């Protein structure tokens, strides 16, 4: 005989699994099986592959609107050949494979006479190809509307398969960019299989570690919206350029916190 929780109405306040009820002190059957289903779906999401053709088309279109003079995105691949290798060898996911590296080197030689780009944007599948296929193009559009085009010289956009965050450092270095932003699929949670993270490094080069990066996470329709994320990124980019650094010494001071908290400081318990 299971007991319902009389506070089930609170479920409208959060996606968390509250008010599940109990039988004795254990989870009721329905809650337990719903959890198993969510886990099964998240497991499947991890192993899904990035549809690079569709993504390339979507990002090309997003770029055309935001930065009309940009070349088509580059398609690159990390040194991790497939998902199985990727999961066990993060070192390989952080580095480009040889053909991709050669391609960027050649590109660097071609553009050596030009001024170095201010910003390189990298889109990597990470642990959720779904996050990237859903969120990368809308985010780039939002960013394009906010970032001052005359003040930020962009490197060609790179799309990377089987990439980890730090692969942006190698790409940024090879492109000679002053700063890199990596858009990457975060590991899928049970309630959020489609979360995208943004990682920002000043002076990208191979070997940078996490204390040198800033991160904006949980970019997705049910999380941080692309507009807010783009605003936040623009602020951080500006500050990073002013201070000539990113990482723990660059604090996110974008005002009064995220809007929901600022708007409603008194939850029902107070």
């Amino acid at each position, binding site marked *: 005989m299971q007991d319902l929780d009389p506070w089930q109405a*609170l479920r409208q306040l959060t996606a*968390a699994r*509250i008010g599940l009820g*109990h039988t004795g002190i254990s989870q009721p059957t329905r809650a337990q099986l719903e959890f198993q289903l969510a886990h099964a779906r998240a497991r499947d999401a991890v192993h899904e592959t990035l549809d690079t053709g569709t993504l390339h088309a979507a990002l090309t279109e997003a770029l055309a609107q935001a930065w009309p003079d940009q070349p088509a995105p580059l398609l690159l691949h990390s040194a991790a050949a497939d998902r199985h290798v990727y999961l066990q060898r993060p070192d390989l996911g952080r580095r480009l494979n040889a053909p991709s590296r050669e391609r960027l080197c050649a590109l660097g030689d071609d553009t050596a006479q030009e001024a170095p780009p201010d910003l390189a944007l990298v889109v990597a599948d990470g642990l959720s190809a779904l996050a990237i296929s859903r969120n990368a193009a809308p985010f780039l559009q939002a960013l394009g509307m906010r970032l001052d085009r005359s003040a930020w010289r962009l490197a060609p956009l790179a799309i990377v398969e089987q990439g980890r965050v730090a692969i942006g450092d190698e790409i940024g270095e090879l492109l000679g960019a002053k700063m890199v932003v990596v858009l990457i699929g975060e*590991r899928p949670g049970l309630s959020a299989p489609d979360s995208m993270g943004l990682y920002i490094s000043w002076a990208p080069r191979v070997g940078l570690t996490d204390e040198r990066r800033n991160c904006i*996470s949980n970019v997705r329709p049910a999380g941080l919206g692309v507009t807010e994320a783009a605003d936040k990124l623009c602020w951080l980019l500006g500050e990073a350029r002013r201070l000539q650094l990113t990482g723990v010494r660059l604090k996110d001071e974008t005002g009064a*916190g995220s809007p929901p908290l600022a708007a*409603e400081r008194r939850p029902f318990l107070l």
Partner: protein
Amino acid sequence: MSQITHLVGSRTYTFAGLRDLLAKASPARAGDYLAGVAAGSAEERVAAQMALADLPLTTFLNELVVPYETDEVTRLIVDGLDPVAFARIRHLTVGAFRDWLLGDDADGHALAAIAPGVTPEMAAAVSKIMRIQDLVLVASKCRVLTRFRNTIGLPGTLSTRLQPNHPLDDASGIAASLFDGLMYGSGDAVIGINPATDNVEQVITLVGMLDEIIARYAIPTQSCVLTHVTNTMAAIERGAPVDLVFQSIAGTQAANASFGIDLALLREAREAALSLRRGTLGDNVMYFETGQGSALSSNANHGVDQQTVEARAYAVARAFQPLLVNSVVGFIGPEYLYDGKQIIRAGLEDHFCAKLLGLPMGVDVCYTNHAEADQDDMDVLLTMLGAAGCTYVMGVPGADDIMLNYQTTSFHDALYARRALGLTPAPEFHAWLRDMGIFTGDGPATLGRSVPAAFQRALQLP
């Protein structure tokens, strides 16, 4: 580095010093293969364990796995060793140390007496020649009590950290999970939020909100917003009511640097928190998190195996008299702990090593969706940890953390462990749960059937 050899049958195995021996004696583990330090065969692993068992404990004082000159964690370990405590065990080999730990003379008092004389490397070494039941049995004899507004770590108790995270730090969303947790008896270790962003203003708002809720309902517990130590210090400077200072720590100076910290910064943070004098029963003001793999992931492992370098983080923790330490065992991912078997073993090793060093160790019994693990593995680890006297585990609605995107123990899971093993929450919190009518009856954990009056007003329920 002195070479160490061991003969197995007709074959001689040679190890290039203590660091190599410790690594090859480690149970098979993804992170050690990734680092290139693991044993090359199953037989080599056991040969290393046999050679390790023959090694005198004094070896660990003469041969350091990370250089003294270049690493402040090594200096902390060496300079901080209590010679009187070590004198009680200095005649032992690693193998004899295992026998002594399991022996009937090694009761809680004896184990507490040697704790300041045990180095992390000794603890890791002896754990490598222990089976899981050994790790459980010895840890269950170690008792470590800490206090802030309640008493954590008493025999017969299992505490929980109520973790009401929300992906947008939405105040009502956090409050809803917090309420759910309290109604399931969770939150005596700490009510701790992982904020969605590191914005200092947001941290201050969350700290203030938790402070108000704890005060309004007179909950005998403490709060923490798990942000970088420099953010917490900034919040304290701006007058925020901070109970505990949180920081992730690791086992080498370089790994700590990758977290943006060093020992001096932690000392400064502890002083800042102590200056607020907010603890009513004690002044354990620090909360540390650790986890196997963090040193390697920042290229700062110095060729030391994953578990040994993890144990070194406990020397860092020990220097700051923390209220809570937590191994986030399955959080980092399958490249370090591949599957349920590796996560279970690592969680019990971490708990054992920390308890042997005298720390209030809890474990985040958890996994990510890209690891080969599931709820069955978590049930096994939770049960073993409960038997081992683990200080606390996490409490998250339905085991699903919607902010950090991983699975950890649910409120129900903690109640299962308490009931199956006859454990209660911290006494002050347990009394509060009974006073509120959240727990009823004489058992360790039986839920009441109605919402307490104090909460009914907040919920405006009929």
